[in-house]
């Protein structure tokens, strides 16, 4: 195993779809043992970046290493060391949650006894035990997300890539999952790379944050560092830091005056 202290390293990572550049020369370094929040507006390139880092999508240009392995040259080594909750959950709907988790465990080389040992506590953590024998077809979106999360955790990966992991999950489960993830980071040195739109979550949960806008990295660092760079006070919420960093402040509310009540009547 590569003992490098950087979990994820990208160098001018680029992905183009025809004329559209979804990710543009991304240079990013995520140290091991941190929770890294990857923030950005819709269509900013978050999911494309995650897909490239998890070897699901080849970059058009540039390089990246995950857990010390090149995503293009050694995709299998990368996949062995990561757990992923992709944007598109991609679950076999006619399997039960237990069966699906078992499938992923087996694909990661866990033996039957070990998979059997690991599944119940995971189901318990994610409050899926009552539905464990139902087909995923009958699950709500939140339950599907929890199943995907359980699949990502079953092999205790070195690095977790989570695309909007808490979207649709109830607050009780969210809290329990966050605690487990924090323990994984603090005690096992796991790295969690996750994308989210929820600023409060990123603010409370992340050690470091990266902000991507229109495919380009607009800022990276701890939240305090980003505040400083955005020239905002120490108590400024992350939402303000985000808006300032991506330069998306609403300049003219006048056009919505009919709605907000601030209409100028001459």
């Amino acid at each position: 195993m590569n003992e490098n202290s950087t979990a994820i390293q990208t160098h001018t990572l680029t992905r183009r779809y025809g004329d559209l550049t979804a990710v543009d020369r991304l240079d990013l370094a995520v140290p091991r043992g941190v929770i890294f929040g990857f923030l950005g507006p819709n269509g900013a390139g978050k999911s494309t970046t995650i897909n490239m880092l998890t070897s699901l999508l080849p970059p058009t240009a540039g390089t990246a290493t995950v857990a010390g392995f090149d995503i293009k040259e050694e995709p299998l080594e990368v996949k062995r060391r990561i757990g992923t909750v992709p944007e598109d959950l991609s679950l076999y709907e006619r399997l039960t949650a237990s069966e699906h988790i078992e499938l992923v465990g087996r694909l990661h080389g866990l033996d039957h006894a070990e998979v059997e040992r690991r599944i119940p506590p995971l189901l318990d953590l994610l409050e899926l035990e009552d539905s464990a024998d139902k087909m995923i077809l009958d699950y709500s979106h939140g339950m599907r997300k929890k199943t995907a999360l359980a699949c990502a955790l079953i092999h205790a990966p070195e690095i977790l890539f989570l695309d909007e992991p808490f979207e649709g999950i109830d607050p009780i489960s969210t809290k329990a999952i966050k605690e487990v993830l924090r323990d994984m980071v603090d005690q096992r040195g796991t790295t969690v790379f996750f994308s989210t739109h929820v600023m409060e979550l990123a603010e409370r949960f992340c050690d470091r944050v990266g902000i991507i806008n229109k495919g380009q990295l607009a800022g990276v660092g701890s939240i305090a560092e980003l505040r400083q760079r955005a020239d905002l006070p120490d108590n400024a919420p992350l939402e303000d830091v985000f808006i300032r960093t991506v330069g998306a402040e609403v300049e003219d509310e006048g056009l919505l005056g009919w709605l907000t009540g601030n209409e100028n009547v001459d």
Partner: protein
Amino acid sequence: MWTELKTLLWLQWKLTRAMFRSRRVSEKLRFLGLIFRAISLLFTFPMFIVMGIGVAVGLILLSSRAAYEAVMMANTFLFFAWLLMPASANSQMVERFEMSRLFPHPISFRSLVVGSTAVSMLTMTGFWTIPLLVGEVIGLTYHQPLAFPLIALGALPAFAVLVLTGRIMDDVFDLVAGDRRLRALALTLFTLPFMLCWLGQYIFQYADWEQNPFLQSLDTASGPSEALEMLNISSLLIWVPPAWPTAGMSLAVSGQWGLALLFLALSVVGIALLLRVHAGITRRLMQGAALSIGAERVRSRRWRVRLPGPPALWAVFRKDWLYLLRSPIPRRLIFSSIMMIAAMILPTMRGLGENDLPPAIQHLIPLFVGAFVLTMTDMAINMGLTANYFGSIDREGFVTLALSPLKRQYVLLSANLVALLYAGLQSIVISLAIAIITGLWVMLPLGTCLGVCLQIGSTPAYNLAAIIGPYRAQLKFSRGTRQRGNMWGMLAWVVSAPPVLALILLPYIFWKPGLVITIPAAIVYSVGLYALTLKPLSRLLQRREHAILEAVTAQE
């Protein structure tokens, strides 16, 4: 690699076993469903074996040359069946082994290529191909026992070619799976060869056997063996992929050992090529190369004309109209209607004038055919559009309607108006087609009138079906409510449609001047029935709104 392969086969086993799982909540129904599936499987597998025995016996009864021709035809049929792999009943009963779902996990490229091919063998198509091939081996061996090793050896590449064909079709389907329109197009293209074969039979039906020397000679064949030999279809089928291994296993029977070996060698090359194609697509899929025709660009124009009546109704109507133009469902309906019309009209029209029926009855045949076609196409439109409104036309969007203060009768009225426009146009086209074919021009006004009245008069029945059995259109399984809705719809249709048919057909047969009274009466009946049922149905829709919402927005 072996561990990964084992896991993939384990996955396929789990997916196949999941076919026996039922979503029904009631234990009793679940148990009954399980028993039903177990019984159907008990019949299915012996049936495969009986099919294999049938093939063997059939080949034994033929001459050796005819057996070769028959095996060529049988394997071409199998090839078409494997082409349909992604659209086959197997794919709907058993969840698809979608390779892309495995890409996030550490599974090697080689395991994926080999594993997915192995998995294709363990499908229902694979299960019934094996007994047929075994039957072919037995049947061919009977003609030349010495050739058994070559025949048996040839069956393996034949099976491999079929499996790889199915696998590649699945790969292609995976490539387009992310794009709704490409997926629909691919399914249409996959089924096209069958459609063409089906329509092709009419060429034989219409061909003038007495004028064509080839067909005439076929007519004089003393038995199936001679007919197959004269047909010599292998000269055409040799270009179809499974033909090389088939020739490899069959030519030895007629003593052409060298040629048989040559074809077997060619088969190995063919398999390598197919495997390469499968590996190539897999690699492209792994690199995220899913095909897409991109976002569909549509023109959105405001309607400048202010239509009379409530603006809310026209707002919903515009939505329904745009949906009809942009949804693939009407296109599929048009396609299936045309096929249905062709299937019904062509054989019937051929029989006209060639029977001993009195002229008065012969004269009525186009009318009966027209009425039948119009009734069936009306059913096809309504089963797809009206009875399926909640779910296939208005799916998640129904939330918007449910949240709005819109009068519920406008929801029905708008959906029904759209279907009426579509049905009216189709009635004109069908009536015109029948009038041109038969020269009975009265079919044009009469057929159009019948089509429109049938549509209006039967609409309440389909509205009832839509409200009682909301259904989310999908390629998977139907819900219990769907059957209930269909049943109520059929019952209501049986009550509502016959008066329209009687009011238009009977006077035409017995006393034509009566049509002056009965046609307006049919219109009054249809419109009256619709108007009388609209309000009660709207109230029912209001009452069942939550149930409909639950049914059409639930996760599948």
